[in-house]
């Protein structure tokens, strides 16, 4: 039996970061991973999707290169080389996973390959090995949930229905794809396939895609997707799947859509198998933890997707640091209202904090200010003018409590909002900050000016 200070189960962005941090703080750490270091994020999630999206964006720009003064004699000579697309993705993933493996090694963490299970709060068995430690950090992530729709199991077996992991390794480009669900992952895949020329249909159960996002973001993205050729059916109820055909009802009518591939993106469920003996409390979102990521069982921490707070890689990492610090005796915590999230659609989305609706509901004296991208010089120069910034503030002090950006570089831009909110910045501070010209970030300043008083660069009636 090997003894450690901390055992981390799961080597995703939650687990490996927790392990590194714990080791940096002086603990002797074991990390158990059943698949590949990097977890969903590096292997099947964040990184492969963004790698493919990079190519898709280039392809899209290339198709309209004439409007930028670059002529391609025959656009039909431009071909997506699916094999190379996949190869590049694998190269990128392997490079980054290799880097993380190096990091883990450099930080003197013992890695055990295999799926672990706990026998009690201090003992984890992996293969032939039994490990023991004072503290346990669970970071096993989540798995795709395939809902029980009549016919879906057969369609999965026949290869018609896939999940996101299948979608990043298709053997060839589908002519058409139907996406079940309208969450962030669904929208990113819709963007990817649509940009590459695949016919995309989204079937969404509720009346909107991207629910929980600010209404202005939702409608802008929904309209833009529709304008660029994606078919979005909201208020649809799926009744049955028959190979590549999805039968559904919409506004009382029985309809169906047939496509090469059906992507199920209907939610994820925490990975809890093997930890039943611990008796940790779970609710419908996932493992229940206190603000220092400790479960109801002393010395057992849980982080990342399995807690279901915000299913994002940077949240998993931040929670991993909190757990490692808690074990080390530093009581830190995360304010989830100050955590950004992104959608890598074209244009991108970056949001943080309260939506207008949520802020009102939470009882704030809410002020909002919006500034459109179409009035921004850099956006016009780049030919990408769909989008806006919306700042939600608490009128009491002018504190910024939510920022919602739709713009081609929104995922880079939201960091400004994150650091402002971390520093309890107000609309006055952002308005006063000199932003460089010409950049998209000027719209953030303009919106702040609009919240304080009057923006310079818009006709506000």
């Amino acid at each position, binding site marked *: 039996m090997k003894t450690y200070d901390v055992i981390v189960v799961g080597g995703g962005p939650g687990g490996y970061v927790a392990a590194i941090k714990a080791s940096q703080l002086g603990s002797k750490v074991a990390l158990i991973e059943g698949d590949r270091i990097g977890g969903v994020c590096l292997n099947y999630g964040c990184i492969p999707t963004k790698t493919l999206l990079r190519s898709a964006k280039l392809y899209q720009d290339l198709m309209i290169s004439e409007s930028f003064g670059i002529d391609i004699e025959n656009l039909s000579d431009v071909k997506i080389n699916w094999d190379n697309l996949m190869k590049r993705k694998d190269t990128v993933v392997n490079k980054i996973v290799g880097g993380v493996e190096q990091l883990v090694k450099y930080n003197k963490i013992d890695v055990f390959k295999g799926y672990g299970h706990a026998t009690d709060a201090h003992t984890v068995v992996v293969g032939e090995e039994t490990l023991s430690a004072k503290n346990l950090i669970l970071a096993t992530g989540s798995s795709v949930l395939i*809902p029980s729709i009549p016919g879906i199991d057969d369609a999965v077996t026949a290869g018609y229905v896939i999940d996101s992991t299948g979608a990043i390794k298709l053997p060839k480009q589908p002519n058409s794809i139907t996406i079940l669900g309208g969450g*962030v992952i669904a929208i990113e895949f819709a963007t990817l396939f649509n940009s590459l020329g695949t016919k995309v249909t989204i079937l969404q*159960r509720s009346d909107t895609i991207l629910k*929980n996002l600010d209404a202005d973001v939702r409608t802008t993205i929904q309209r833009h997707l529709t304008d660029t050729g994606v078919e979005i059916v909201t208020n649809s109820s799926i009744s049955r799947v028959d190979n590549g055909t999805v039968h559904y009802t919409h506004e009382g009518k029985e309809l169906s859509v047939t496509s090469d591939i059906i992507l199920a993106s209907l*939610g994820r469920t925490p990975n809890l198998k093997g930890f039943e003996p611990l008796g940790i409390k779970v609710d419908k979102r996932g493992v229940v933890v206190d603000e220092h990521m400790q479960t109801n069982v002393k010395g057992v921490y849980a982080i990342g997707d399995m807690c279901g707070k*915000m299913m994002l890689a940077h949240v998993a990492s931040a929670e991993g640091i909190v757990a490692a610090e808690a074990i080390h005796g530093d009581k830190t915590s995360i304010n*989830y209202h100050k955590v950004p999230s992104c959608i890598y659609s074209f244009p991108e989305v970056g949001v943080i904090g309260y939506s207008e609706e949520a802020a009102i509901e*939470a009882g704030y004296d809410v002020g909002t200010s919006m500034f459109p991208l179409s009035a921004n010089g850099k956006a016009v120069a780049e030919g990408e003018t769909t989008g806006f910034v919306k700042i939600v503030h608490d009128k009491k002090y002018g504190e910024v409590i939510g920022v919602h950006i739709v713009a081609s570089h929104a995922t880079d831009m939201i960091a400004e909002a994150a650091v402002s909110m971390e520093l309890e910045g*107000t609309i006055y501070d952002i308005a006063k900050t000199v932003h460089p010209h010409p950049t998209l970030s000027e719209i953030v300043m303009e919106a702040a000016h609009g919240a304080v008083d009057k923006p310079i660069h818009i006709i506000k009636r």
Partner: protein
Amino acid sequence: TAVVGEIEISDAVIPSSGEGSAVSEPSRATTKVLATPVARKMAKDLGVDISTVKGTGPQGRVMKADIQAAADTKAPSDGAKAPSADTS
């Protein structure tokens, strides 16, 4: 009808369901001093009670220059320099 999962991955905002938002609901009842991180550290360092300093930054935010000015004016007369506990 289809069974659709409760959990949507990388869902952007925490729904306002009980458990989720309870984690970090800000306490908004107290009046707070708007101050910059450097001003707060400096106030502690120089024994200045930050809540007595009038801020000159946007919306009255206390900046490091304000703490320096407060420390400079009190320094000649106040030799004792009782450090302030206020680090809010």
